[in-house]
């Protein structure tokens, strides 16, 4: 395995991970694409040293077809998934004008309820500057009535 290839895999993996951590779905899709490419390169290098002929009938040691089949399948699957995600991003943009991945509604509700109960019970508001207090018990549960 050449150092250049290893560096390329590392670079793509790092860039992919960085993009994946964003809110915007478009960046996430690009990040996933880069990560998939990094993994495909790993699969390619798993096939052994380069230079062997891929086809029967040539002289010398034949290249292992299995990693190439792996990469081919992965590319096809990746294409389908990317198309689907892009359609999702478009749909998200049609609905609310952006393609940000939003927070879970229930999580937001719990966090807000915890914050409010904290504000009403705590005598000193300066001590509770944390956004999440974890006091989930304080959420009103009408189901118990």
């Amino acid at each position: 395995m050449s150092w250049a290839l290893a560096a390329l895999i590392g670079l793509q993996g790092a860039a992919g991970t960085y993009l994946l951590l964003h809110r915007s779905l478009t960046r996430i899709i690009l990040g996933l694409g880069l990560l998939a490419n990094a993994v495909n390169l790993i699969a390619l290098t798993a096939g052994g040293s380069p230079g062997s002929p891929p086809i029967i009938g040539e002289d010398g040691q034949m290249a292992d077809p299995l990693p190439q089949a792996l990469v081919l399948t992965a590319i096809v699957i990746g294409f389908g998934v990317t198309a689907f995600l892009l359609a999702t991003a478009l749909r998200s943009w049609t609905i609310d004008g952006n393609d940000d991945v939003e927070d879970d509604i229930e999580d937001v509700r719990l966090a807000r309820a915890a914050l409010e109960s904290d504000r009403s019970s705590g005598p000193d508001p300066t001590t509770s500057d944390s956004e999440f207090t974890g006091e989930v018990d304080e959420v009103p549960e009408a189901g118990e009535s």
Partner: protein
Amino acid sequence: MTSEAILPLLILIPLFGAGASLLFARLRTAQTMLTFTIAIGTTILSIALLLKVDADGPIRAVTSVPEAPIGVTLDLYADRFASLMLVIATLMLSAVLLYSAGQRAAGELSIWYQPAYLVMMAGVSAAFVTADLFNLFVAVELLLLSSYVLIMLEGNDEQIRSGTTYVVLNVLESTLLLMAVTLVFAATGTLSFFALPAAIAELPSGVQTGLNLLLLAAFGLKAAIFPLFSWLPDSYPAAPGPVTAVFAGLLTKIGVYALIRTQTLLFPDTNRTLLMWIAGLTMIIGVLGAIAQSDMKRILSFHIVSQIGYMIMGLALGGVAALTATIFFVLHQIPIKTSLFLVEGIVEAETGTSRLDRVGGMARRSGPLALMFMLSAMSLAGIPPLSGFIGKVGIVTAGLDQHEWVLVAVALLGSLFTLVSMLKIWSGLFWGDIVPADPRKGILRHHRRMSAATVGVVAIGVAIALAAGPLYDFAERAAEGLYLPAEASGAVVGDPK
């Protein structure tokens, strides 16, 4: 027809059926009939396979390309564990199909629902009968891709919001899995389940641990184990009712199946401490999350996570006794979890929500519905005569035998909390005054197909408890088979052509 031909047929029939059902996209009745025939046919085939495998031992079907210089083969294999999972999975898929056909508004589910559903069925079958790591990856992709379509079926705001998380996380899981598969290949030069155990045993221990952890992370994300579960309670509740039911019952269990397969076959009895930590934390954190929720769908979604912990606990303990209990527990979880979500779907179809503070008195409106919920909920919590109790006793006994006191205590505490949150659903939704005020009774009569499917699934859950003796014996034979190398288990090798 030779018995080996069943294995590829289990994948091909639903896959071609999906294509055929697309042709009937405009003829809804014909599409439904076709989808049903295919689902029932696949179920019958898988039952035949189970009987055959139990009588004659594992079946292996190898299709190879003749005259290829390097072995290019498609290797399918079904042992007792795989065929048992296959039977319960196809049964659930058929029942939920009936349920979704009975959704009140006939146009509620789009024309893409049934084709995507059949593709998922093919993926589930393929995941259970595959005998090499790469085909396992392809099978998981097949069912994931169709699950992406299903979870965003209606394409509304809520589904796009939560579905995006689901898709992105699962694409990441696929990437991890592919990386694990290629690295296993790079290290050993093979991907076949039959050749891998010996090849991996020869590797240096550091490489072994690395590969093991990569596979654990990839399948753990799918199975929603402790640090990797946060996508699940977020995304499942938003999907259409029947879709959530089948996802809850099946998809995470396929992650568990893959974990059990790879851990017992490729890395027997390693990483036990790590798995025990994961098991304990998954159980407790899942169930604590459930208690904090106030919506039936969300409570149940957190319980999926919690119950996965018990399966991982059985796997972590290792040995035939613990794995027997684990197999039985997975078998029991699939119908129980599905039936709870099906009951939730009926409540939601009737009242429009499953928020505990907006619905009440369902028990007065429909006694049978409340009974079905109670049977499944008590089974989930592990109350004695029901199947959950038998599975949990098996796992806890194995834990006591190995002196894992802390883990056993955590498991029992988790069970107690499960009971608490089930009672919370009971007192919120089923007890008390009728809310919203609606004098109509006999809910089940208004949703005939949905009720029939739910009754069927609950009956399967009860049947597992009634037939616990023979099923437990079967699970024991399956668990013994897990540790045997394929050659010694007397696999029938045949060419399906």
